[in-house]
């Protein structure tokens, strides 16, 4: 087939961009490495976590790994949600897309669905001022949020204080929250007025998780979440959106072709279209294809790698955005010694938005998780106690333990960068003094809020830069002054090219503290629409 467009990457951005292009009738190919290993997740019995723990003699396979006795890396402290059934998400990264850095430690992926294969499914929308700072058009994005929410299925409440401007208008009913989250919501209701005055709002988490079936009666039907608390291990009736569901749907269309095990190296913008060179990772063979348009959606680090290599821009620094991230284990006093219900999901139960005075209107954003299905050993290894004593503490605290993940807003500075070095992509990341002061103030304020909610902070853990898995800004939309070498036009087209578009969060100039994935998908639709319109011209 004659190709109108090639999409690079099958993550949330790539999947949504491809869907927009295919629905517009274009001939589309997707180049993707696409590692996938669904067998382990599919083999897990569909019963609640607590029942599995008591009944399944084979549980070590999915809790520790297929070779749990020999290889269980129970001491890996980063990325607890990359459980053994999700190990494929990180497969091949060190070999094929290494990053050299002593200050930035990101997660990237070559999986089918990219990092979206392990997405926690938080689905907030950006507010108008956040969209404007990021360089995204407010009216079009708000329409596209609903297009995406309808397509992937987002559940949430439009009644909560956090929902005023942070949730799509098209949502399924909110998911049921667990006993722990209910007590926190009750504490919030009692102190709501004072907390709102302090700039804090709490609500149920909007999630790309179904509470009602979607596409019922079709071959792409997805079910509602079974509340088995196994969402870090299984696909849970496909209730939590994964980009591969979109790819599966597209593969049934005659105008879409999925080319797997293809690692894109570079592109060449020519008179007859864009020539894309890629390597087949199975045998190392070099291949290429040509299309009228190229849509880069490989995640901000890989998109930058491809664009810099294509421009032969060795040593040229591009900006890098990544939300600083802390997590705060807390003890919810109201739950100490109390029982919890068996039926619940494992994702964020609540979200909190904190707008302290020193941020000038910017939000600090937090997700509240109840701790259960990630097992005791991840807690015990953090305690300065002998394991037997640590286990006692863990068992007493388990039902009261609330993990609060706090994301801080992020802006570009000269100390956060990526560049192409002689041996591959390099990155540097350092917060300046003002940012460190702001973050320290965020955390002090947040600790007060948590205590008011009855959640006593036990520790505040600073994660290494890159741990938030929220990346952006490597090829930003041009702002007119002080721009880096590679920039995008406002419609996502790569400046200096007529045929290459950037459809992931590489083009953003600012990264709010909220989860960016829903916005990435809406933006990918927007950029794909611009690519479709370019054919009309």
């Amino acid at each position: 087939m004659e190709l109108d467009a090639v999409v690079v990457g099958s993550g949330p951005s790539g999947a949504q961009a491809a869907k927009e292009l295919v629905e517009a009738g274009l001939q589309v190919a997707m180049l993707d490495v696409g590692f996938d290993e669904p067998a382990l997740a599919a083999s897990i019995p569909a019963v609640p976590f607590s029942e599995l723990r008591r009944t399944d003699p084979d549980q070590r396979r999915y809790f520790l790994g297929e070779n749990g006795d020999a290889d269980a890396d129970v001491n890996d402290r980063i990325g607890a949600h990359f459980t053994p059934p999700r190990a494929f998400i990180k497969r091949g990264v060190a070999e094929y897309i290494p990053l050299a850095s002593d200050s930035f430690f990101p997660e990237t992926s070559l999986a089918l669905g990219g990092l979206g294969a392990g997405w926690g499914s938080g689905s907030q929308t950006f507010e108008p001022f956040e969209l404007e700072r990021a360089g995204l058009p407010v009216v079009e994005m708000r329409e596209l949020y609903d297009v995406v929410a309808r397509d992937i299925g987002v559940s949430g409440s439009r009644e909560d204080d956090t929902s005023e401007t942070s949730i799509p208008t098209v949502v399924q009913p909110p998911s049921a929250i667990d006993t722990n989250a209910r007590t926190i919501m009750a504490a919030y209701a009692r102190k709501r007025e004072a907390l709102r005055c302090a700039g804090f709002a709490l609500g149920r988490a909007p999630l790309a998780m179904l509470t009602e079936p979607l596409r019922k009666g079709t071959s792409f039907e997805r079910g509602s979440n079974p509340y088995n608390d196994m969402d870090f291990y299984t696909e849970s009736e496909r209730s939590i959106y994964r980009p591969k569901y979109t790819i599966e749907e597209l593969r049934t269309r005659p105008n879409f072709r999925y080319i797997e095990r293809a690692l894109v190296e570079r592109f060449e913008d020519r008179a007859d279209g864009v020539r894309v060179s890629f390597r087949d990772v199975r045998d190392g063979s070099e291949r290429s294809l040509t299309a009228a348009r190229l849509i880069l959606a490989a995640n901000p680090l890989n998109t930058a790698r491809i664009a810099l290599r294509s421009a032969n821009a060795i040593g040229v620094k591009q900006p890098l955005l990544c939300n600083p991230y802390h997590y705060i284990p807390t003890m919810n006093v109201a739950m100490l010694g109390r029982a919890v219900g068996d039926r619940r999901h494992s994702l964020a139960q609540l979200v909190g938005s904190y707008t302290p005075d020193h941020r000038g209107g910017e939000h600090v954003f937090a997700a509240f998780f109840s701790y259960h299905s990630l097992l005791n050993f991840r807690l015990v290894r953090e305690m300065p106690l002998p394991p037997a004593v640590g286990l006692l503490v863990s068992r007493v605290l388990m039902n009261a333990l609330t993990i609060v993940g706090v994301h801080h807003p992020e802006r570009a500075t000269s100390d956060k960068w990526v560049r192409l070095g002689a041996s591959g992509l390099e990155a540097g990341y350092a917060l300046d003094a003002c940012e460190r002061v702001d973050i320290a103030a965020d955390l002090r304020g947040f600790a007060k809020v948590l205590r008011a909610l009855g959640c006593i902070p036990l520790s505040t853990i600073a994660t290494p830069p890159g741990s938030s898995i929220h990346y952006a800004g490597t090829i930003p939309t041009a702002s007119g002054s002080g721009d880096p070498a590679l920039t995008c036009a406002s419609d996502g087209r790569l400046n200096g090219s007529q045929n290459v578009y950037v459809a992931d969060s590489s083009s953003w100039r600012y990264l709010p503290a909220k989860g960016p994935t829903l916005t990435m998908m809406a933006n990918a639709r927007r950029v794909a629409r611009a690519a479709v319109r370019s054919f009309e011209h």
Partner: protein
Amino acid sequence: MNLLRPTPDQMRRFALRETDVRHARSFEPIVAGPVVALVLLALAGIAGVVAAPFVLLARLFGARR
């Protein structure tokens, strides 16, 4: 504090035991009311403080060897 944390070998044994179905119940949350929970936490704190010097000595001695 890092010196007092369990070693990788201890944690590997711990994780294997936790995922052994025969021991599942001894890893379940303790639900006995807030008073018992506070007493257990206090006892665990005392046990941790008592054990700390021995753990430290064992680690330091082990490291020198």
